[in-house]
């Protein structure tokens, strides 16, 4: 999988997240912006009351965001495996081992850490649900 393939999966996040009522409820106090990058490809997300109001695949010059999470395509692919290997089961594990970087103003991330972890893991849950169906 290359950056384009990974970005295409991220572009499915609004559909995966916004219909997940417990997840949206968990993020109901969260309104912020963030950037997720796969390699050199950035995606800009706008969160409003726990829903992904907008996602745009960049790059867009001078686009601002509160915090950013970056990893390469290989790391995101391994992160989304139905049974991820050690070091790729959690975005903080990827950060710990240098496979992801988390930067910017982390307050909105930390105040909603479970929410954002589960947003990032939504494609993995969807794959598992698809396998079980």
């Amino acid at each position, binding site marked *: 999988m290359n950056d384009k393939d990974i970005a295409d999966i991220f572009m499915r996040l609004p559909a995966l997240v916004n219909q997940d009522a417990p997840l949206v409820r968990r993020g109901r106090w969260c309104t912020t912006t963030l950037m997720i990058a796969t390699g050199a490809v950035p995606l800009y997300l706008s969160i409003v009351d726990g829903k992904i109001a907008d996602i745009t695949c960049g790059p867009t010059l001078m686009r601002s965001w509160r915090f950013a999470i970056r990893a390469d395509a290989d790391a995101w692919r391994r992160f989304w495996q139905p*049974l*991820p290997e*050690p*070091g790729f*089961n*959690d*975005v*903080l*594990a990827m*950060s*710990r*081992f240098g496979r992801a970087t988390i930067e910017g103003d*982390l*307050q909105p991330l*930390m*105040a909603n*850490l*479970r929410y954002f*972890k589960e947003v990032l893991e939504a494609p993995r849950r969807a794959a598992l649900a698809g396998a079980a169906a």
Partner: protein
Amino acid sequence: MSIAFEPITGRYATLTLAGRPCRVYIEEAGKGIPLLCLHTAGADSRQFRHLMLDHAITDHYRVIAFDLPWHGKSLPPEGYEDEEYRLTTESYAEAILAVADALELDRPVLMGCSMGGRIVLHMGAHHARRFRALIGLEGADHQTPWYDTAWLDRADVHGGEICAAMVSGLVAPQSPKKYRWETLWGYLQSGPGVFRGDLYFYRQDSDYRDRTHLIDTKACPMYLLTGEYDYSCTPEDTKRTAASIPGATAQIMKELGHFPMSENPAKFRDYILPILESIRSKGSA
């Protein structure tokens, strides 16, 4: 009316720790060799409830676990409201020995997880005569910090939520959902600043690379067990530590994370039962 009580008994005692009275909660089950259990940072003794309900263990061991002051059902000392809680090697070791003395335990097996797995190294280096064996779960001689603990105690971040979310990935993906969330409940419930105060010990006051060579495993055997999904105390951290202690054994547990006894009790017993049997057989020899 009949009620199916579990065979776990909990009691309270006031112990003098750091010169101050502290009301401490202690629970236990079983009879035999005392097995004193130490919970992880920011959590409490409930993590060991599955061991206390396992006849394969309680037929031979008196399993005892206590909540450190500030944790679980133990109270913080009087005046806590104006203090910043910080656990240290000195205060942690004192609490362990105080509980062992109060219960008049005869050379218990000491088993701790995470920061409990760290302090067993210190106890092995300086108090080995007090113990029959030492078991370090998710234990190593030091840790490379992997996040800023300031996030754990801030007015603009919910303390319980961030403590649980910070450690949630340390539970292996294979662990049963109900035990994952039971384990995390302990973190969701922790008092403000308590997890961070424990991590003061874990990160600032327990670099034990200077004392692992003092551990005499002939006098007191040492067993280290770490889950393959633990990225806080990594398998490499544990293997490195064991390599610095002649006679210590290290085992990496498949499909387990940082909380083996509470996140997947069935899987953990595959690893812990042989060790407890080995300790028991040596004791009767």
